[in-house]
């Protein structure tokens, strides 16, 4: 947790700066709006955290979010009665994609970077193959409630945060981190390394399902809904001081990383650094944050699990 302190300081600084530039931010409605906006990324960051801390990557979450929304729209097709069955199906899809990612990575020993890169291509290809190139159908009002009404989004976020913390404190979380830190030692201590990793991927898939439900609810169906979310989620986790390669970092810090990223976007916009230069500023800040956080530590290898 000590490693995580800088991110909270930075986050606090950003929030103060936002409040100074836009007092509306301090009103309950303003802050709620901010939370609602952060929720999907924060949830994705929590899911991505499990995968990263176990020593892997999940690049498929962006495509998976798109798949979730497009599938929901086509299956619900405006019919309220379909809301709950489809919500259940989305969760199943998320878990299933995570399961496959996890099995391919652990059983077939494909580096997760490649597994999930493949999954990213396959998922977005398959869903648009199914719908003929663009989303079809419509979401029901019942479905959209979760993303549209701030209270719901914030409540779901709160549940995710609590669940993530509890999971990390449980045997699962500890053995997951140990597996990310030293796979061999964990295995020789009786840890079912493959199983905990598969479970981590499933949690990431689940987080993509939940994020998809929130994003689809927030703004309706669109083909771009998940675009580049995987990079944002990984960036958020890394900003939170979690080390790529596994074994180090705290889930709350990863979620704080998502808040920081979103706060950074908000602040840049408030100061009119929108559009063009926003990306440049973002790039520099990400590098700087990781550089400052990592300088004291030895350089780490790129590929997490070297078997």
């Amino acid at each position, binding site marked *: 947790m000590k490693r995580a302190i800088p991110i909270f300081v930075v986050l606090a600084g950003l929030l103060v700066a936002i409040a100074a530039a836009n007092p509306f931010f301090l009103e309950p409605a303003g802050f709620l709006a901010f939370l609602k906006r952060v929720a999907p990324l924060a949830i994705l960051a929590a899911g991505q955290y499990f995968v990263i801390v176990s020593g892997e990557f999940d690049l498929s979450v962006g495509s998976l979010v798109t798949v979730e929304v497009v599938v929901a729209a086509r299956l619900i097709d405006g019919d309220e009665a379909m809301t709950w069955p489809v919500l259940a199906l989305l969760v199943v899809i998320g878990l299933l994609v995570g399961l496959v990612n996890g099995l391919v990575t652990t059983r077939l020993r494909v580096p997760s970077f490649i597994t999930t890169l493949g999954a990213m291509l396959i998922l977005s290809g398959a869903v648009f193959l199914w719908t003929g190139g663009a989303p079809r159908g419509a979401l029901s009002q019942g479905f959209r409630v979760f993303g549209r009404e701030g209270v719901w989004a914030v409540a779901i976020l709160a549940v995710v945060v609590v669940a993530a913390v509890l999971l990390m404190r449980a045997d699962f979380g500890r053995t997951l981190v140990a597996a990310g830190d030293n796979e*061999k030692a964990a295995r020789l*201590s009786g840890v079912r390394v493959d199983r905990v990793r598969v479970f981590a991927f499933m949690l990431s898939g689940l987080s993509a399902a939940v994020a998809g439900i929130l994003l689809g609810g927030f703004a309706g169906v669109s083909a771009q809904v998940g675009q580049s979310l995987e990079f944002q989620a990984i960036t958020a986790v890394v900003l939170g001081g979690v080390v790529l390669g596994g074994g180090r970092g705290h889930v709350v810090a990863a979620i704080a990383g998502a808040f920081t990223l979103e706060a950074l976007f908000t602040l840049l916009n408030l100061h009119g650094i929108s559009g063009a230069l926003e990306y440049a500023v973002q790039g520099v800040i990400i590098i700087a944050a990781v550089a400052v956080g990592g300088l004291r530590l030895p350089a780490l290898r790129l590929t997490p699990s070297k078997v």
Partner: protein
Amino acid sequence: MLRMTGIGKSFLGIRVLRGIDLSANAGEVHAVVGENGAGKSTLMKILAGVHQPDEGTVEIGGTTRSFAHPVEAQRAGVAIIYQEFNLLPERSVADNVFLGREPTRRGLVDRAAMEEATARLLDELDEHGFGPRDLVKDLSVAQQQVVEIVKALSVDARIVVMDEPTAALAEHEVELLYRLIRRLQGRGIAVLYISHRLREVFDLADRVTVLKDGAHVATVPAADVTTAELVKMMVGRELDAYFPPRADASAVGEVRLTLAQAGNAKLDGIDLELRAGEIVGVAGLQGSGRSSLAKAIFGAEPFTRGEMTPVRPASVREGVAAGIGLVTEDRKAEGLALNQPVRDNALLVARAIGHRSRTAVSDLLRRVQLSPPREETEVKYLSGGNQQKVVLAKWLTVAPKVLLFDEPTRGVDVGAKAAIHDLMREIAGAGTAILMISSELPELIGMSDRIVVLRDGRVAGHLPAGATEEAVMALAAADEAAA
């Protein structure tokens, strides 16, 4: 030749070395001894340019040098065999030997010259088991150590540092190394020699420098001290008895594990019985199958033939569930999650199998004499001996019925070694069956209630407690003797 004066070094604000003086003359073997974490390797890494000292100076051949990078030390004539293996498994022997110093012809790497030079050096070492083009990953551990040595020799060095070069070697290979060191000596090369095996120190060294807690204790001619004196300097106290008393016959209880004609790819026809309360030693040469035996019993590389009762675990989990534990020979690579706190490491096995009793971690750490018993310290900051104690604690949380120790004191200093020996005896006394593998014969003989000798993956014979080193070696090397 070499003079290091007033060397000081801190890591993350923790003082690891202070005011160390060390010198070595041409043709001298200078041993450096000390407990785990005394700073021996750190001092050598400073000499090799891996670390930069915070204070002090390094003089070589009369000129003061400061190395910013290992390559600069190499150029100044310092060659080093590191404590940890330092080879690229995917590259050939020649590539490894000349890494960073590849000979070139017209700007291009001259592979032929490289291979020729490597072959010559291998010849010099009487090593004919492999050639310059073989990939390192295909070599045995001992062969890899030879590559390390060749690598150090290939540098036209004036100073050769050997940091525990024998840790992975069997007795007869150690003999070869001795010959080699004498030859280096003859060429006027200064050799700095680090080992925890004091016998080697007395065999080889002209002078001995003792370090303790990062400070210089003494530098004395080897001929002027006794083992006991040296140990006292290292640990700061006298060690009364080297080994705890053996179990008496009445303490040996029920049969915990039986092997009958058990075998797998590396083992064959193993018969063995382990009983509660006793320590069974396993002897054998490098590659004789000792580790394989432990891993097979544990379920990591399961038996495929024969009987093992009461259960024959097919996986690590089954082994752990059946009450078997393994203290692996390489604790950093296979035993510990180094970035996690002591507490999480100690609880790892319990958590992995969903074992309930975990209240007693602090008691346990006290029991294994972790000092200081700080549960929140990340394991990577502990000394080797303390790390080994954490590994022990990890298994003790689940109270195993059978505990397998593979080189439990490798690279552990004398003080910690004694503590671990006491603990093993205590654990056995509490009713656990113990199997102990060790390459150090005095230790093996001193600790074991009986000894099993392996040769080529088979049981070569059984010996009672108190067998002589000669008896053990006779069984272990019988084939070679016959051949």
